[in-house]
Each structure stands twice: as structure tokens, then as C-alpha cells.
């Protein structure tokens, strides 16, 4: 999904009615937002944080210092690790790490839904749709989290809903 399209999704899910115009820069097609009252902003997470503030939903950036730092940590993870790494092995490592991280968590920060969940969901969507039933079961925590986020009101929009089976088929693998 191109960054501009993703930002459009985010705008909608944040309830921002007036859409912004985005251009893309360089071979990696980094999104650029020309703001009305200042210099342009470059970069997916930078623009996303800006949109959150525009929508007056600062709570999505975290409420305590710790939570804010964790949100930014996962946003950084999203643009450095999830984007651009599309080899099978990379994806596997990524899912494995995330699966282990999410073992005791509902959302990325723990108990609060944040921008990190939204962008990681958008970023992972293209990988998760291709997972086999067996893989989804292997990355059980990721599947649980992903399924949860895609049902969060207003987030998924036109993205395809990924089907997860509730009962386990491959009990041996655990």
C-alpha cells in the first residue's frame, strides 16, 4: 500500500473530513505533506502524528512519558523493520518477534489502543493476508492482536478482512 493511500485511510479513521494532498519523494516514495501554515512534513510516522494532533486525538500518541516513548518506538519499528523487508525470512523473523512481544499484551503499549497499533496493522496487512492457516496458528498472538485491530471501529475500511479460525487445527505444533 502506498504511503499516501495509507495516510488517507488514517485520515478517515481519525474522522478528519477535509482530506490533505500528499506527494511522494524519491525512489522509496516517502510521503510529503504540504501544510497550510508551515513547512512541509516528510515521512509516514511524522505525518501520522501530525494528523492525530490535527484530529485532537492526542491520546493515540500515549498518555505518560513511557507510553509516548513506546508508541514512537513501535512507529520507528514499523518504518524501519516492517517496510522494505519483504523477503520470506525477514517476514518470518518479524512475525516471530512480534508474536513473542504480544504474548502478554492486548495492544502494543499494553492496555491502550494507540497510533502504533493502527500503523502496524496497516503495515502488516499485506503479509498477514498471505499467511496460511497453519502460520496464523503459529503466530497466534499476532493473529489475536491483528484480528482485534481489524475489528476496531473505522480502522479497516476497504482493506480485506482476514479470516482467523477460532479452534486450533495444528495442536502438535505447540
Amino acid at each position, binding site marked *: 500500500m502506498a504511503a499516501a493511500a495509507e495516510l488517507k485511510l488514517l485520515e478517515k479513521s481519525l474522522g478528519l473530513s477535509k482530506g490533505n494532498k500528499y506527494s511522494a519523494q524519491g*525512489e522509496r516514495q516517502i510521503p510529503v505533506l504540504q501544510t497550510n501554515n508551515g513547512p512541509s512534513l516528510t*515521512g509516514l510516522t511524522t505525518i501520522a502524528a501530525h494528523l492525530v494532533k490535527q484530529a485532537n486525538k492526542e491520546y493515540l*500518541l500515549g498518555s505518560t512519558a*513511557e507510553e509516548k516513548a*513506546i508508541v*514512537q518506538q513501535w512507529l520507528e519499528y514499523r518504518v524501519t523493520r516492517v517496510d522494505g523487508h519483504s523477503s520470506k525470512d525477514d517476514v518470518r523473523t518479524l512475525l516471530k*518477534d512480534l508474536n513473542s512481544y504480544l504474548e502478554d499484551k492486548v495492544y502494543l503499549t*499494553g492496555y491502550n489502543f494507540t497510533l502504533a497499533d493502527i500503523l502496524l496493522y496497516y503495515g502488516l496487512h499485506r503479509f498477514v493476508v498471505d499467511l496460511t492457516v497453519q502460520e496464523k496458528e503459529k503466530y497466534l498472538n499476532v493473529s489475536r492482536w491483528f484480528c482485534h485491530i481489524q475489528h476496531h471501529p473505522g480502522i479497516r475500511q476497504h482493506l480485506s478482512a482476514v479470516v482467523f479460525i477460532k479452534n486450533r487445527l495444528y495442536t502438535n505444533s505447540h
Partner: protein
Amino acid sequence: ECVVPFLTRPKVPVLQLDSGNYLFSTSAICRYFFLLSGWEQDDLTNQWLEWEATELQPALSAALYYLVVQGKKGEDVLGPIRRALTYIDHNLSRRSCPFLAGETESLADIVLWGALYPLLQDPAYLPEELGALHSWFQTLSSQEPCQRAAEMVLKQQGVLALRPYLQKQPHPSSFEGGAVSNEPEEEELATLSEEEIAMAVSAWEQGLGSIPPLRPQQNPVLPVAGERNVLITSALPYVNNVPHLGNIIGCVLSADVFARYSRLRQWNTLYLCGTDEYGTATETKAMEEGLTPQEICDKYHAIHANIYRWFNISFDIFGRTTTPQQTKITQDIFQRLLTRGFVFQDTMEQLRCEHCARFLADRFVEGVCPFCGYEEARGDQCDKCGKLINAIELKKPQCKVCRSCPVVKSSQHLFLDLPKLEKRLEEWLGKTLPGSDWTPNARFIIRSWLRDGLKPRCITRDLKWGTPVPLEGFEDKVFYVWFDATIGYVSITANYTDQWERWWKNPEQVNLYQFMAKDNVPFHGLVFPCSALGAEDNYTLVSHLIATEYLNYEDGKFSKSRGVGVFGDMAQDTGIPADIWRFYLLSIRPEGQDSAFSWTDMLLKNNSELLNNLGNFINRAGMFVSKFFGGCVPEMVLTSDDQRLLAHVTLELQHYHQLLEKVRIREALRSILTISRHGNQYIQVNEPWKRIKGSEADRQRAGTVTGLAVNIAALLSVMLQPYMPTVSATIQAQLQLPAPACSVLLTSFPCTLPAGHQIGTVSPLFQKLENDQIESLRQRFGGGQAKAPPTPVVVEATATAGPQQIQVLMDEVTKQGNIVRELKAQKADKNQVAAEVAKLLDLKKQLALAEGKPLETPKGKKKK
């Protein structure tokens, strides 16, 4: 190994919070501390941190990996990160703020400084031209908390402290793919503005009329007030050897491209070079060949001149240093330095051979190493332990010529007081360097000399073959070559015109470009400027010092003694035309990093770039005009596609100019090939050979495409002129390009072959190089065989050995000596070394036997 339980790849630093959560990136950790202290997040900081994570880090890890793990240096390290550094610099200077996010330092500054510090603390990796980055980095580095942090993390080991961590990281190969993005030209080409297209079209329409008349040839060439006066020198090759390809590309050929380019721009240009003829090396060679030093110089000067003529080097003067002018000017500079108190006398202890009645230069002494006891240590260095030796410390020293034992004698010498001149030098550099085109390696070398502090330098030698020292008590001495060799440029000019001072004492009007390999930088960038500044005679000093790295041969070095590599005189025997050599050498010019000559690569470049790309395009364009239009350039009706092509070509032409103005010779060559690639594509897409058989409209379209293509070919012939002068002239003759258009290159692309222009006979420009041809050349020049050369021929020596046999023996001794040295340097097997040493001793014995009488001129050709 595994720091964060949920991350597979080891990652540091990591901060574990009280809640059990981890922050596993530097910027997240720093952000957390800033948030704790009450800071509010803002867009600009977010943007910098995102850029740091996505752009800077990949580039930086690649650079650090090359530096620390692979031990690379210079441009190899700087290359991947240069774009990121420039980006920071531009941002700082554009906003004219001292810090990244405003007037005070912020989170962004801390994170970026911390990331960059390990690399940038070495000034070699902080490019001088990035002034804003420079001062930002210095400001932060000088702050106490930053200093303490750096101390704690790097533990005074510098960047090497990162080694254990970096070694665990994967090889940054994934980055190299992205690094190709230092060629943003192609991308930019896709986005032409309407304005650019309009300008290209209007320049095209101006045609031949826009080309100014040729500036008249002067003789002699002298600076003209109000014009751009370009004085170009190429390092003076030592007379006593035949130059190899590395020498040729390093100086004369590079300087030639620039000189030819400079003339194409109609700049007032003087290009000079010559042979450097004085010194011990010449005396040695003379003894070896049984000639007088003067005879040696005459012989080799002619060899050099012939080689450069064959390579089509466009010297205005190719002179030599053994002239009365050299004596006059050197002595004058010396006298001026002396009266101004920049020269002092001191005694030096030196070895003197009473038998030969002379002081021995380091290379004439051999003895036992005072450190390791090795028997054949040289006067300057021991080949076994590698320590530097002061010749008088050798035990059992021997004169290499007569084998008698020299004695230590003290001798008076003159020293140039460089410490006294250091301040003037720094002032001059401070004015000259910023904004100039000094290559990064030259800046680096000069900086490191200055950092260590200049020391007095002995400028006299106990020799005969040199410029005499005009001072009482110094009648038996001459100036040391490195004092007077660089004065050679001045004296060579003085032999060309008696008005030489208009070039050399005219810093306001003259732009001096000096070309050399990096080993010559100290003499040109430091010693000569010091002498000239101390002489207080308004000398013209180097404005742009252009130094190349080294060219290797296949996998090793060029070696005359081992017969490895291609030397100037052999290139002509290969049957490959000079222009092909020029093209290949220039396309691998060691610009920014060492490069290697490779036969396979030469074949590849010739067959792909020259034959299939450039040659194919120019030939097709010309052939279409001859075949379809009777040799007469057809009418051109430009469509918007054609106009876009004009603009693309113009952009690439401007890029070529930008690069050559900065003397980036190798890169500019790529622009030529890019234009011809555009041309080939254009022909391929428009298929004039089909359209010519079609309707009236199709035929007209074929005419436009052919006409535009042949005009691009004409433009290429001029752009090619600095690189391949003969091919350029051939194309221009084939196309009958009007005279002024042949020798002037504008920054725009006018139509120089208008409709109705009659072209000449078109024929192919390049020949294919075949595999067997190249393979046999590779074998002939010993490429790739790093093993020891075949055992030397043992020549029977009799008591009445002729000079020819002695010569052969001497060559063998030298050759064998090198084999031994080579083996020892490689720490080869002891028995093998012993065997080779035995051979060497045997040869020496034979030589001693054979040498009963004084040497005469050898009649036969020297054995290779």
C-alpha cells in the same frame, strides 16, 4: 547475545523500564528522557528522528561497517554516507539555525550527534565543504556532557570500540542497492519543467549562429586580463623509468582531459609537463646502463616524449628540469629564502665511501640491521623487521657499489625552516581551500601533515647530479630534488617564453590546476607553497590540487622488475588504438578510491559501451542520413517528444559541464554514454528504417528522427573530444561538422547540422575486442600471476666478460634482489627464501668476477 527477549537480532543500546517494558532504539530512549523532563513532542523533531531511523542509520551502518569491520578508508567509507551528510548540511545552512530544530539544541541534535560521532570524530570523514555541518558538529562535540558520553562509550579507542557490535551485524549489502541512488540524474530527467523544455528548444533553434568564433591561437600562450587563464601542470615523471599505465592516468592523461576541456570552453589554457631529471636515482641508472647522467636523461626524455605523443597528450610544452633556467630560478628562490632567514645550516652525520670518494645516499648502503640483525638491511629500512633505519646506525655497513666499508663523516647541510613558514601556509590554505576543487585526499594529506606540525627539512644532498647550491662551503652539494623538482614547472615555462612571470607571478589572474598521484601531494601542497611564500615574490600558487589514488594491475601492483603490467611503451605494441586505452583508463580513473586495470573489464567496456552503445548510435545516425536521405540532413519538424529529448540531452550536457568544471573526469564520461543511450532508445522507439517506407507523414517523421539523431551524434563528437581526440576528429570528418562547432562546446545544444547539410562517408568507429586476443595479452603482460617469476638465466661469466654480460648480470642481481625482498615481505617459507638468497649471492659473485674494468656502453638491448 539476546538482549531484548522478544527480538531475534541482537540490538544495543536497550533501556529496560521499571514496568518491564523495553525501549530498543537510541532515539526512543532519548525521547523518553526528554519526555520525562517535560518536553513536548513536535513535528520537526519527529521528522528528524524518522529521517535518522530510515535514511541516516542504513547509510551510517554501511559506512561504519566498511570502516571498522572491513578496514576500508576514504571514499569507500564516505561514499555511502555523503548524501546524508549533505542533507544535514543543507538543512542547517538553509534555515541558518545553529541547531537542527532551531536556536537551541534539542532531542534531534542529541540523537544525530550521537549517531554520527563515532565516524565524524575523524576529520577525514567530515567533508570540509560542508561548513554548516562542521560547525554544528564542533559545537556539540565541545560540550562537556557530550564529551563525557563519547569518552564513556568509545573508551578512547575511537570508532574501533564499535567493532564487536558491528561484526555481529549482517553485511550491509542491502544498502548497496540503495546506494545507486547517488545517481539521481536519471530520476531528475523524468521530471522536466515546461521552462526547461522551452529553453532547450530555443537554444536548438539558434543553430550555428550561437557558436562564438574561435579565439585566435597565440604563440606563446600568455595570460590575458579579463579572461579565464588556466595553467595546468601534470606531475613531472622521473626520467629514469618508463611510465606505467598508473603513472599515465594519474597525471598526464587526467590533466590532458582537463586541458582539452578547458580549450573547448575557450578558456585561455597552457598545459605543461616535463621530465624530472636530477637526483640519485638518475645517477644509479646511469651507472647501471654505463652512461653519463646527461646521456641517461636524453635517452629517457625521448622515450617519455614518444609515449605521451602516442597517447595524444596535448602538451603546450613538454620540457625537462636539467636546464640553466632551472638553476637560475631555483637559486633565486633559495637566495630569497636565505636572506629572509628561512634557511639554516646544521651538521648531519652521513656515511662516506672513501674508495668511491663520495657520500652515500641511503640506497647505496647495505649492512646489518641494528634491530633484528638481518644481514641485508638497506640504508633506510630493514626488509626483515620493517623498522626505519638511520643509515649511520647500520652495523657493518657496505658501499653497494664497491663493497668497501664507508666511514661516518659529518657534513654541513642546509635546512628549510618549515616551522617558521607554517603560519603563512595555514593563512594561505585558509584562503585557498574553501570552495576550491582540491580533491578530498589532498585536503586530508595536507591536514594530517599540519596536524603533526611541520619540521625543518634538509634541502641539500652530497651529489653531483643536481642544481648547484650557490653558497660558500657547499660547492660539492646540490639541492635535494624535492626542493627543486616542483620549481621545474616554473623553469619549463621559462624555457617556453621569456615572459614566464606573467604565468608564475600572477596569482590574481591565473588559475593553477596541478594534477598528480596522491604521493606527490605534500610537495605541491606544502613544500613548494612554503618556499614560494617565504621567497615573497608573488608566486602563483596552486588553486586546485587534483590528486588521484592508485591504479593497480589486475590483482596486484605494476612491477617493472617482475615484468608485470603494461608500461607506456608497450601499449602501442598491443594493436589497440590509443583512444581505446584513453577511454578505458579514464573510465577506471582512480577518482576517490584505488582502482584496478583488468583486461576482461577492458574488453567488456570496449564491446559494450564503445561498440554497442556509443559507436552503434553514432554510426546508425550517420548511416540513416546516407542511406535514406542521400547524405543530406533532412528537414526536422519537432514533436513534443523530440522537444523532451532535446531537454534531456541538454540536462545531461549541463551535468557533464558541472562535473568537468569540478575535474570529476570519470563521472563526466558517464554523461556522454548516457546521452548516446538516450539516442539509441530514441531511434529504437521511432524506427526510422520502417517509417521511411511508409506514408508521407511517416517519411517526414523518419527525417526528423534521423536529423535529430545525427545532431546528437555531432554534439557527442565534441563532448568526446577531451577523452578520445582521434575518434572525435573521425566523427567530425564523417559528419563534415562545420569548423567552429568542432572546437567549441556550449552549455546548450544548438542544431549544428541543419537541414540540407551534406555529410561525408560514414564508417564504423570501433572494433570488437576478442577473447583470445585479450587472453594472449593478459599472458604476455603477466597479469594474475602473483607467483615468483621463472628462475633467472644463469649467464656464464668469464674473466673477460663484456659489458653486455655485466649488464645482464646487473639486471639479474636487481631482479633476484627483488624476488628475495618480495618473498620476505610475504613471509614466505624459509627454505624457499634461503634458496633464492643463495641464487642472489651466486649472481653477485659472478658479477664481482665479471667486473674487472670500468663499464662501457652496452650495445645490446636490455634484457627484459
